[in-house]
């Protein structure tokens, strides 16, 4: 039933669903500039409703540093969940590295949350692909559970104000011009707010 592009990471008990109610019903931006909504649509990203908070995320990176998403407020954050065995994840890793290289200085933080791989394996993988952005360990899937992740890759975009902006379940065109425009639009938000 899952998206055909998703790697089959899931675990019974990750989400505990309560109950289902069955109800019988009685009846049936400026011209030329793509808006955030336009960009999300083009990239097939799902937008969040206003006011929804982001689950707390703290973890250790593969290099032993502690990362907390709440301490990243003021930066645009791209959080993607991945695993070394996930075939759909691999092409995206280099695209995320490119975004990291091009936009980190402007305020983008890319976080790769690895689910259940052993550290040496992650290190080899990162070396092979030349990854330099933080790779966070989630050996028990705790972070994935908090974010509701049941398939890989799954990616979240967070604005500078800490609000969740968009969600992608499955691979997306993160190397496209539209993706770069989206990141730039989010990076520009704080500039507008600071003035």
């Amino acid at each position, binding site marked *: *039933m*899952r*998206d055909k592009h*998703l790697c089959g990471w*899931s675990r*019974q*008990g*990750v*989400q*505990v*669903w*309560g*109950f*289902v*109610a*069955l*109800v*019988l*019903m*009685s009846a*049936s931006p400026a011209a030329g500039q793509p808006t955030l909504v336009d960009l999300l649509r083009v990239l097939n990203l*799902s937008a*969040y409703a206003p006011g*929804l*908070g*982001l*689950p707390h995320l703290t973890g250790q990176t593969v290099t032993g540093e502690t990362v907390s998403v709440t301490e990243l407020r003021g930066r645009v954050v791209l959080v993607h969940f991945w695993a070394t065995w996930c075939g759909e994840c691999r092409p995206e890793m280099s695209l995320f590295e490119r975004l990291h290289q091009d936009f980190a200085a402007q305020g983008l933080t890319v976080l790769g949350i690895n689910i259940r791989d052993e550290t040496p394996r992650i290190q080899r993988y990162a070396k092979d692909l030349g990854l330099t952005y933080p790779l966070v360990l989630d050996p028990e899937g705790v972070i994935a*559970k*908090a*974010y*509701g*992740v*049941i*398939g890989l890759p*799954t990616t979240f975009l967070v604005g500078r104000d800490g609000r*969740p902006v968009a*969600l992608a*379940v499955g691979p997306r065109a993160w190397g496209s011009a539209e993706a770069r425009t989206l990141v730039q639009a989010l990076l520009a938000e704080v500039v507008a707010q600071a003035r």
Partner: protein
Amino acid sequence: MANLSTRKADYPKFQELNVQILGISTNHPFSQKTFAESLQLPYPLLSDFPDLQVTRQYGGLSGHPTLAKHGIAERAFFLIDIQGIVRQQWVIQGGEDVVFSSEPLLKAAREVAGK
């Protein structure tokens, strides 16, 4: 998860009976959105987090003290008619692997709908 997918597979049958399926859980809305996107469910998921009011009112909180303490609900189904009256309920025994068939739900819905 398998139960949600089972209802997804049988969704047209529920639609034929004019039954709206609502999935309710005690999970955080953020994780619920990820979950709904992942499963591409044709029906909405509602969050009862953090107060668990609906879950409590329906007696849906887990009977296991430890699970209840963590806000974990029983897996259960409630059939509500157009007057808002609960016509039937099913509480699923067993673990996550137990998949409850849609047939008893559809049968009850047919009876309520007079079809």
